[in-house]
């Protein structure tokens, strides 16, 4: 299919997509969470008739708007980059992947676009009740769009409900419901949206803490924090449970990702969970030395996390690359040779001049097709994702994940005691915690996306094949164009938001 792969182009395309996705994800999670908080604040206004809740709603809404528009700008680029930079991907899986994207447009984006305008400009144009309804619809629309795009992403992590069609040389959908309700898709949706709720809560807590430290708008700040902390606390607990579920699903469908997350090279029964560790950067797959320079383990915990029962085996990188007969794990080398046989048979099928040859080639193809994607790997070690990046990102995310509920609990505790304004050290920490929130968001996506390399579609389509026919220089140029654009937008967005915060709500 592809004679040769230009890896420098592939890597720049990866960098460009990662750049766009990471910028996009600075803005999206806040949209997911803050939109619901706006709906809560406005509901309180409509229910109590208290004008201060309206001022609170409008203040947070103005910050929401800035964030929302940059999210839209980066989102458009992300959608079209599947076509511009991953053209082969677009053809080979477009039959499945395009559907949730179109559904996202129909079911979610129009809700957002329509009701966003009412939410902002409709205060004096529509009834109070309809305005409130619109604010709720913005929250619903934003989260619905997250559902569809995460269904698409979940499918890339765990492709289900489809089959390869040798006639068209692509994967075709066979069961829409399987794609929609795949455990990975649902896991992605619940984990990513609840992490967005968490960030929304953290954002309100951060800005409000700053007001309390400055002794400005204290009433508004405390009211906002009370609502945001309850929401954030519930979300942060949910994030931990969905995160656990995500790790369990990974063990089932992406064992290599889980091995990389834990830096587990040699598989073990009753494997320990690394609490804290420093990887030896020189350690390579297949080597017998300890991959850790330093580590503290919780015995048996990884086995529990991965399999939910003790005395079971968790495969490591080496088991997955070199095979483990005792555990019935096939080596990557064997998969590669089967994949190559599949590619050869597919080519023969395409070149066959008579029915018999075509049928014979098809039969051969069908025997090996399960490993088609592996045929493009040049060495078994290529199947290993960047372990260091995945490992550290995972551990940073998890540690932060356990910190956030404590912050929300702290806010609620001090609010209840009525001493929040005096807790200077705590408020300072709460202000800083927003950056930790963003760090957790980004590291989470690094785990999800870097951890599944080299696959665009897990096990089926390596990124090297998914690429567009472009030159490295072209992609480099657009990478820097987007980097400049995004940086300007980010700086402008942050400046506008900080000015609006400094200005505070209308009094």
């Amino acid at each position, binding site marked *: 299919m592809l004679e040769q792969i230009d890896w420098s182009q592939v890597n720049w395309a990866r960098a460009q997509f990662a750049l766009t996705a990471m910028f996009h994800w600075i803005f999206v999670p806040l949209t997911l969470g803050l939109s619901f908080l706006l709906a809560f604040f406005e509901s309180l206004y409509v229910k109590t008739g208290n004008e201060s809740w309206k001022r609170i709603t409008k203040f947070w809404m103005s910050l929401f708007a800035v964030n929302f528009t940059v999210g839209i700008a980066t989102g*458009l680029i992300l959608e079209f980059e599947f076509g511009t930079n991953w053209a082969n991907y677009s053809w080979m899986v477009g039959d499945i992947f395009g559907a949730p994207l179109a559904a996202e447009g129909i079911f979610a984006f129009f809700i957002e676009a329509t009701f*966003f305008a009412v939410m902002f400009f409709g205060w004096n144009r529509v009834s109070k009740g309809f305005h409130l309804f619109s604010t709720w619809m913005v929250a619903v629309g934003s989260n619905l769009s997250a559902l569809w795009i995460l269904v698409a992403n979940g499918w890339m992590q765990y492709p289900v409900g489809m089959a390869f069609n040798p006639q068209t040389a692509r994967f075709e959908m066979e069961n829409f419901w399987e794609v929609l309700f795949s455990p990975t898709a649902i896991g992605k949706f619940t984990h990513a949206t609840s992490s967005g709720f968490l960030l929304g809560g953290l954002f309100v807590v951060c800005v409000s803490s700053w007001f309390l430290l400055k002794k400005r708008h204290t009433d508004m700040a405390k009211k906002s924090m009370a609502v945001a902390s309850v929401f954030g606390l519930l979300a942060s607990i949910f994030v931990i449970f969905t995160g656990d579920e995500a790790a369990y699903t990974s063990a089932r469908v992406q064992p290599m990702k889980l091995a990389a997350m834990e830096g587990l090279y040699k598989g073990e029964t009753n494997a320990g969970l690394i609490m804290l560790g420093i990887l030896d950067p020189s350690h390579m797959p297949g080597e017998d030395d300890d991959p850790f320079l330093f580590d503290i383990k919780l015995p048996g915990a990884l086995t529990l996390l991965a399999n939910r029962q003790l005395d079971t085996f968790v495969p490591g990188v080496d088991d997955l690359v070199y095979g483990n007969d005792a555990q019935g794990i096939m080596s990557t080398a064997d998969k590669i040779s089967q994949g190559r046989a599949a590619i050869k048979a597919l080519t023969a099928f395409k070149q066959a001049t008579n029915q018999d040859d075509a049928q014979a080639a098809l039969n051969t193809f069908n025997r090996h097709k399960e490993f088609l994607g592996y045929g493009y790997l040049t060495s078994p070690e290529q199947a290993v994702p960047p372990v260091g990046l995945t490992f550290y990102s995972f551990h940073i995310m998890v540690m932060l994940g356990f910190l956030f509920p404590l912050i929300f609990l702290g806010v609620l505790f001090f609010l209840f005691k009525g001493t929040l304004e005096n807790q200077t050290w705590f408020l300072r920490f709460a202000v800083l915690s927003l950056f930790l929130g963003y760090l957790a968001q980004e590291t989470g996506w690094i785990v999800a996306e870097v951890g599944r390399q080299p696959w665009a579609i897990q096990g089926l389509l390596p990124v090297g094949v998914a690429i567009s026919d472009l030159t490295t220089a072209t992609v480099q140029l657009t990478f820097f164009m987007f980097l400049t654009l995004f940086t300007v937008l980010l700086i402008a967005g942050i400046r506008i938001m900080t000015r609006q915060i400094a200005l505070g709500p209308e009094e």
Partner: protein
Amino acid sequence: MFGNLAHTQLQELWWIVVSLVGSLFVFMTFVQGGQSLLGTIAKTDRQKSLVINSLGRKWELTYTTLVLFGGAFFAAFPKFYATSFGGAYWVWIAILFTFSLQAVSYEFRKKDGNLLGARVYETFLFINGAIGILLVGAAVGTFFTGSHFQVNAFNLSSWKHPLRGLEAALVPFNLAMGLLLVFLSRALGAMYLVNNIRHAKIEEKARSAAFRNFLYLVPFLLYILYSLLTMQGFALDPATGTISLEKGKYFVNLMAMPIVMLLLITGILLIAGAAVITGYTSKRLGIWLAGPGTVFTCLSIFFLAGFNNTAFYPSIFDLQSSLTIYNASSSHYTLTAMSYIALAVPFVLAYIAWVWKLMDAKKLDASEFDGETANDLY
């Protein structure tokens, strides 16, 4: 229901759906047209603010329609998505860039600390309105003039022109299509502003801009119509799947599909009528005539390109690589599933129309600058 349709019927149905979304997008580019007219129509800061706020309440709908157009093409005709976006790289990247600049400009323009200043964001809006739309038009032009690409036996494509899509703008037909779209969007934008704003000065300028921009688009329209009726087209032999060049193919298509001819003529007449009514009477209904007129005209263009056994995305590098609605589409299963999803579209259109009726019940005027609403303005 849809599952019983033949694959070819679903492919045709989806060409209609994609064409409809594309045509609605062109209608919605009245937002971009209004942006490029900002300097012409609004002289003072307040006038500018009224125009920006009027357009600013619709820009997201246009944007979303573009996103849906991309998504629908991806889902229904993924080979087009792969071939065109990955191939004509620079055109699409440039279009994306101008739309990304637009997305933040409304919100950022007047805000404290916006880094670049209001003027720069207004320039971004102009670039999106002028260059963005020009390139979209040029890209549509390639549906008739063809592009330089090749698709291999595995349906993977490679682009064969070093300008990666920008070469499309060098073809007079494509350029004319781009300019036609620019002037059309400006005429539409002016008519929309006449309808949406109550301000004597703005209205006067917008009425004259609507008519003038209609006059500007006439020569390009005539050139395109003349070309379409006389140029060779890319014919598909349905029996063998081979593509060949056929003289007067689009003329043949027009004759073979009277409904397309009807759409084209009605569409053009509606746009012309709207321009005259807006320019020479005090009626405000121009946009409601030119809107459907634009949709009808665009539909006829899409139908000419894709129906009656025609390659809608032809390759002039290798004729047999040309994309037709039959060889570029998704599977029967996916098109069926997507058809059920598309059943939601009428409901979506209905709630959009209903919400906007509520929102536009009171038109924008100078009173927006007083009281509470002043803080809600862009």
